[in-house]
């Protein structure tokens, strides 16, 4: 007999987001559960631990109002699935996968397991297609490529959402018009923040190619555990079944990790660093590793996860574990933000691991790698000198050092800073870079091949005369 029809009223314990049900039979690990409160309200849960006669269940919508008397529990006989179909584009879903845009539910072509299976590394295609975002600090110094996962490490109150919206708006692959889609997954952000994205998608007409999964700040926290999994299942369908290039925006991973910690604490697990569960690395990897390209398939999944570093601390477990999995990171800096520099990208700790393969002669321009390295090195030197100046004063510096000091300031003002609607081409970005470098002594441009210096370095005034 299928146990689908049995309603158990044997809840013995309610603790935090968890309930424990006794006397059950044949419960599968991770099986989905429907819970009915004494007032008739229905909630959804998932089995966290299965015993022969007992199950521990996490309740997505929270355990408020549940009791150990009348609350009834029904196991639906399958693990969490998402129905997918072509019509999914343009739709909005809540944390349990139900549409909330007042349109009829979609008729699924297929129902997919939301945990997904790992991509076989042998089947992966190495990402190498340059995406122009129009933001100099990304395109020029930390290039994004199709199939990459490049997170934005931000802090509370920094404009990471504006930046993500700008990327979603401007991102394109040069010289190609291809099918693309955006999957937007909001975990615990405020409705104001969510509206910023929605408005932006509306204005650019991207809304009909966007799928939204929303769990706002006042929605049940535990839903945040399954939300990104649904979003990524949807993205995989769009990318690898419908051959679309999908940009997935996940915000805010910090809220996701908090939800993870909440469950771990309720289960009385041995905590790892700062109370986060020991398996958080694996858990985050299950999300981030779903980005990529597959040999022989046209589509791709590019992920921009966003997280706010608690107290701007990059060594906090959330950014730390993320950085170990993702292919680089864009770090935002409060100091730059205070100086009114948008986007406040702290250039030095940023990185794009896939950049080397995405730039160069056929992709961006031959001198790109050298210019980028030189800008980095010069800016790093300038920043060091700032510290020195704070102690000895500018007068104690040599002529050469003063040039580097000035370079650092100019670099922030001209290269890093841009308007939120300014879409710079890669050539514009490189040109700004060369102009800044031309203020340094040419002999100091050690990281650039001589032939590029001859070809691209703007002539200084004296030389022209």
């Amino acid at each position, binding site marked *: 007999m299928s146990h689908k029809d049995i309603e158990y009223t044997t809840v013995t314990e309610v603790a935090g987001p968890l309930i424990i049900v006794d006397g059950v039979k044949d419960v*599968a*690990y*991770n099986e989905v559960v429907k819970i009915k409160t004494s007032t008739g309200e229905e909630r959804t849960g998932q089995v966290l631990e*299965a*015993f*022969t006669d007992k199950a521990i269940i996490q309740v997505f919508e929270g355990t408020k109002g549940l009791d150990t008397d009348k609350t009834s529990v029904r196991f639906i006989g*399958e*693990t969490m699935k998402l129905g997918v179909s072509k019509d999914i584009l343009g739709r909005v879903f809540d944390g349990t996968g139900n549409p909330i845009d007042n349109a009829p539910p979609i008729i699924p072509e297929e129902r997919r*397991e939301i*945990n*997904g*299976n*790992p*991509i*076989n*590394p*042998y*089947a*992966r295609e*190495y*990402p190498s297609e340059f995406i122009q975002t129009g933001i100099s600090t990304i395109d020029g110094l930390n290039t994004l490529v199709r199939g990459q996962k490049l997170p934005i490490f931000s802090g509370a109150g920094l404009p990471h959402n504006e930046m993500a919206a700008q990327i979603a708006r401007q991102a394109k692959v040069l010289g190609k018009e291809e099918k693309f889609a955006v999957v937007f997954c909001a975990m615990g952000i405020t409705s104001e923040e969510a509206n910023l994205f929605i408005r932006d998608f509306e204005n650019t007409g991207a809304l009909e190619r966007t799928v939204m999964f929303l769990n706002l700040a006042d929605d049940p926290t535990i839903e945040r555990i399954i939300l990104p999994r649904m979003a990524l299942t949807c993205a995989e369908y769009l990318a*690898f079944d419908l051959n679309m290039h999908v940009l997935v925006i996940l915000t805010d991973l910090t809220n996701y990790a908090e939800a993870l910690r909440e469950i771990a604490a309720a289960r009385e*697990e*041995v*905590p*790892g*660093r700062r109370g986060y569960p*020991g*398996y958080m*690395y*694996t858990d985050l*990897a*299950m999300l*981030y*590793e779903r980005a*990529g390209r597959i040999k022989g*398939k046209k589509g791709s999944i590019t992920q921009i996860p966003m997280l706010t570093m608690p107290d701007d601390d*990059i*060594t*906090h*477990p959330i950014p*730390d*574990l993320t*950085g*170990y*999995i993702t*292919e*680089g990171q864009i770090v935002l800096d409060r100091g730059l933000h205070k100086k009114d520099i948008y986007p406040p990208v702290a250039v*030095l*700790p940023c*990185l794009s691991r896939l950049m080397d393969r995405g730039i160069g002669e056929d992709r961006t321009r031959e001198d790109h790698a050298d210019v980028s*390295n030189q800008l980095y*090195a010069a800016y*790093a*030197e300038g920043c060091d000198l700032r510290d*020195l100046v704070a*102690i*000895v004063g500018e007068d*104690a510096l040599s002529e050469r050092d003063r040039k580097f000091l000035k370079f650092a300031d100019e670099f922030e003002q001209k290269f890093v800073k841009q308007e939120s609607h300014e879409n710079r081409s890669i050539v514009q970005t490189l040109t700004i870079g060369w102009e800044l470098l031309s203020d340094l002594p040419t002999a100091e441009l*050690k990281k650039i091949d001589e032939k590029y210096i001859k070809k691209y370095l703007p002539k200084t005034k004296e030389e022209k005369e």
Partner: protein
Amino acid sequence: MSNKQQEGKIIRISGPVIEADGMRGAKMYDVVRVGGENLIGEIIRLNEDNAIIQVYEDTNGLRPGEMVISTGMPLSVELGPGLLANIYDGIQRPLPAIQEKTGEFIARGVEAPAIDRKKKWYFKPTVKAGEKVNGCDVIGEVQETSIITHRIIVPPELSGKILTIEKEGDYTVEEDIAVVSNGGGDVKLQMMQRWPVRKPRPVAKKYDPTLPLITGQRIIDTFFPVAKGGTAAIPGGFGTGKTVMLHQLAKWSDAQVVIYVGCGERGNEMTDVLREFPKLEDPKSGEPLMNRTVLIANTSNMPVAARDASVYTGITIAEYYRDMGYDVALMADSTSRLAEAMREISGRLEEMPGEEGYPAYLASRLAEFYERAGRVKLICSKDKEGSISVIGAVSPPGGDFSEPVAQNTLRIVKVFWALDADLADRRHFPSINWLKSYSLYLNEIQSWWKKEIGEGWLKLRNKAMALLQKESELQEIVKLVGPDALPPKERGLLEGARMIREDFLQQSAFHEVDTFCPGKKQYEMLRLILKYFDKTQEAANKNIHIDDVINMNSRENLARMKNVSNKLFDKKFQETEKDLDKEFSLLEKGGS
């Protein structure tokens, strides 16, 4: 002894850990098949009738009551021709075969033999009937790839007389190629053998490592060398270049066989190796590097229980090639993920946690793993050697080396390459911090360098180190008074140290020439840079203005030495040296 297989039923499922009853008689670390999908698991604790099992595949949808069947065998790997140039998952299933069976995504319960059963290999016997053989004695050869001759060896625990041996010809790995009589009975041998991964293959004796593992990386070979058969750890926060460094070592190390274990890291990194290695040439043979490499991939999203298996699988394959008499290098990226997997499983077993939630046996497990490295005398009848060098990456949380995995690793390994986020931020790569790193092999291997490369090797190296040390002290003063306030000699010293840092230690993994730097070239580069430094000190004594020395033309030649072709550098460096001498003597004349 009964051959009865234990059959039990699942009574609890918690993530990758399940509990089954009715398992009395099953042995610790036996492999079991779990549930209707035949998932693979391993027994990690026994309690009367109950067994606790870690499952190497996703346990979603598994139900209590499903069957658990013990295979009665510990987790083993298949060893034989066909390992090289292949890529496996953590429990030695070949990923290309998995793709053929289940498509681009790895589904559960897939079975695929590690070594192709159908492929025929051309076997040449090297012994005759009647000869006596011991464990690890070579009985025949197979040309496995263009670089590596696969020596077919007698399994370590067998010895006796060859009764029959097959003629030269094509055989599959399962066909009998020899029969050995060992007193107790006749044993048929095939080209393939099995070995349990958690049990080290026996060796006769461990030697001290005296030969360097040449890696072509200047900061490693010259400053912090690792020996063949040695152990090294490379800890660093994210973005400090651990993986690039390990890839470089896998590419250019002068080991004959390389095992690369991607343990809990990014999928794209394995793809990168798969894409790049077939194209790169082995500097010695000119053949594709892939032909000497075995890849093991348990990426971060693959099942966590198989993470610890992946490392053991890797080291067992390494031991097998060592037993053929090869020098093997194993890279594990990253051992922290292995430790985290142990922590996760330990947590699910509700064991008493040690430091930061890691199990109390973390240190002993790490030691067990690294101890399988070494330069050894093989157990075979002839006096033969083989070696395994192990290089493990460590990913400390927050880049803080005081955490348990880094600390326990440092207690075991002899070489420590400390990656530094500050250096990485300013794009100084490899970002190995020269003040924090160390190598305990310097004395053991110096005789090789002196004999093969140059008498003054250790002196040069120590002089350069002293210079860098002095620089860091001077930097403290510079921070207070500015560089211009220093006396000329000190400024010369700062310049010398800067040249060592920028023109010697920095090395580009992506530059076609600079990616690999031969030992001789390293020696000459360092000699010339230090010569320049000596000259600056002399010049300072002769009251030549330090700015003239700093701005001289030869400096640019010195800075570009790293990109001079590895074949022609001798001649070019001689010219550079001449120019340097000339320029200094001109200065001296002008100055006096």
